[in-house]
C-alpha cells in the first residue's frame, strides 16, 4: 500500500461545484485534495460542453464551460488545491477515530476528516455499445481503452468509432496486430485530419480494412471473441475478430458511490439542507449529485450549497473553535488568505 496522504477535506469530483468548494473551504483554512476520473478539471463543463455558452452564472451574461472552469481555477489558486486526475474513488471507509480513508483505483489512500461528494451525474465512463451479449467479452476480448499494447499483438483487432481515440489506436495497433479493421457508420470522421489521411493510406495499401456500418453481433465462447457481424446498408458481413475496441464516447455512472452506505433517492444523495451533510456524518454532497425538496440542478445552486456545507465542515475539522462569518470585501484576514492584502 502506498503512503497515506493526510488532509482536511477530500472532494470527489473536480467540476465547477467541487472547484468552488475549494474556495469556500479555503476561506476557513481547510486544505483540499480533489479526485476526478477525467484528465482535467471542469467535469461536465469540460467534457460535455467546453465551447458551449452558459447564460445563468450570476454576473456572467455568457460564459463557456471551459471559460467558467478557467475562471474557477484562477479563483481557487491562492488555496493551492491538490488535484488527482484519471482516478476513481473506489472505497470510502470510516476509521475508528472518526476520520475517513478514501481509496482510489490507483491504490492511493487519503486520510481525511471530511469528504465532499461533488460528483455531478456520476463518473464519466466509456459507453458500452448496444451490441447484444457484449458484456460477456468485456475485460477478455473487449476493451474500452488500451492499457497494454501487447494484448493486441497478433490479434484480429476491430476498432469501432470515428473519433480521435479510434483513429489513434488504429494507427498505433496496426503494426503489431495480425489484422486491423475499422468500422464506422459513415465516411466522415471527427478526428484530426492527419490521422484520417494516414488511416486511408493504410486502407489503400491493404494494411487496414475499413467497413462502413455498425457492429450488430458478436460470437465467441468463454469470453474469447471469434467474429463480429457488421451491418451495412447492403447487408451483413461477418469478419474474424479476437479483440474489439469500441470508442463510443463517455457516459455518467454513479459507480462505487452506491456502495458507501449512504441513503440514496433515485441515484441521488439526500442531504440536510442546512449543512448538506448526507445520512453519514462527515460526508457531504453538493451539486447535481444531491437531492432535497425543491432541488434544481444548476451550477449556481451548487455554489450556494458549497458555502453552506463549509460552515458544517469547519465545525467537524476544528471542533470547539468559533466559526466567524466574514466578508471578503472587508475582512483583512480573508484578504490575506486570498493574497490580496
Amino acid at each position, binding site marked *: 500500500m502506498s503512503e497515506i496522504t493526510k488532509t482536511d477535506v477530500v472532494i470527489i469530483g473536480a467540476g465547477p461545484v467541487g472547484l468552488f468548494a475549494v474556495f469556500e473551504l479555503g476561506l476557513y483554512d481547510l486544505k483540499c485534495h480533489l479526485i476526478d476520473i477525467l484528465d482535467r478539471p471542469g467535469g*461536465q463543463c469540460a467534457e*460535455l*460542453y467546453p465551447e*458551449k455558452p452558459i447564460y445563468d452564472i450570476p454576473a456572467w451574461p455568457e460564459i463557456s464551460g471551459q471559460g467558467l472552469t478557467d475562471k474557477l481555477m484562477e479563483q481557487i489558486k491562492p488555496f493551492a488545491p491538490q488535484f488527482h486526475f484519471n482516478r476513481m474513488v473506489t472505497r470510502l471507509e470510516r476509521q475508528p477515530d472518526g476520520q475517513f480513508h478514501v481509496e482510489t483505483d490507483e491504490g492511493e489512500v487519503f486520510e481525511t476528516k471530511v469528504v465532499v461528494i461533488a460528483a455531478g*451525474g456520476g463518473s464519466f465512463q466509456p*459507453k458500452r*455499445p*448496444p451490441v447484444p451479449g457484449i458484456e460477456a467479452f468485456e475485460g477478455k476480448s473487449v476493451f474500452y481503452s488500451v492499457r497494454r499494447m501487447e494484448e493486441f499483438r497478433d490479434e484480429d483487432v476491430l476498432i469501432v*468509432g*470515428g*473519433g480521435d481515440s479510434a483513429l489513434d489506436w488504429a494507427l498505433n495497433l496496426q503494426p503489431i496486430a495480425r489484422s486491423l479493421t475499422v468500422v*464506422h*457508420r*459513415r465516411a*466522415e470522421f*471527427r478526428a484530426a485530419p492527419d490521422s484520417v489521411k494516414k488511416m486511408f493510406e493504410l486502407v489503400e495499401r491493404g494494411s487496414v480494412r475499413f467497413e462502413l456500418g*455498425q457492429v450488430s453481433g458478436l460470437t465467441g465462447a468463454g469470453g474469447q471473441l471469434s467474429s463480429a457481424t457488421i451491418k451495412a446498408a447492403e447487408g451483413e458481413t461477418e469478419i474474424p475478430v479476437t479483440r474489439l475496441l469500441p470508442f*463510443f*464516447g463517455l*457516459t*455518467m455512472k454513479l459507480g462505487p458511490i452506491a456502495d458507501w452506505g449512504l441513503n440514496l433517492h433515485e441515484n441521488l444523495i439526500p442531504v440536510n439542507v442546512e449543512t448538506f451533510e448526507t445520512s453519514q456524518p462527515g460526508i457531504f454532497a453538493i451539486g447535481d449529485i444531491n437531492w432535497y425538496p425543491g432541488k434544481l440542478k444548476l451550477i449556481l445552486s451548487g455554489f450556494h450549497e458549497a458555502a453552506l456545507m463549509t460552515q458544517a465542515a469547519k465545525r467537524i475539522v476544528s471542533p470547539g473553535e468559533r466559526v466567524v462569518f466574514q466578508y471578503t470585501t472587508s475582512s483583512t484576514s480573508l484578504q490575506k488568505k486570498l493574497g490580496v492584502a
Partner: protein
Amino acid sequence: MAKITFVTFDGVRMDTEAENGSTVMESAIRNAVPGIDAECGGACACATCHVYVDDAWKDAAGEPEAMEEDMLDFAYDVRPSSRLSCQIRVSDELDGLVVHVPERQA
C-alpha cells in the same frame, strides 16, 4: 404552435403541442415521452434524444448538421432518418410532425 406526434417503440402515439422556436426534445421531456432521455439537456452532447423522423416529414425536418452527425455516432441503431430531437426546431412548417422513438437510447 405545432402538433408533434411521438410514436414510442411499442407503437403508442403521443400527441404533443410545441411552441415555435422550442425543440422537439423539449416537447418530449415536457410531456414525459418514454424513451427520450436527453441526458445533457439539449447541448447536442450526448445522443440520448435520438429519434427517427417519419418518412413523410424527412424533407421538412431537414438533415443533421456536422456536429449532430458527430454525436449520432454514439447513438443506437442509426438509420438514414435518424436525428437528435434537441436539434430539430419547431416551426409552422413542422405542424403535424411525426417522429419514432428508437428501441433504446445509447
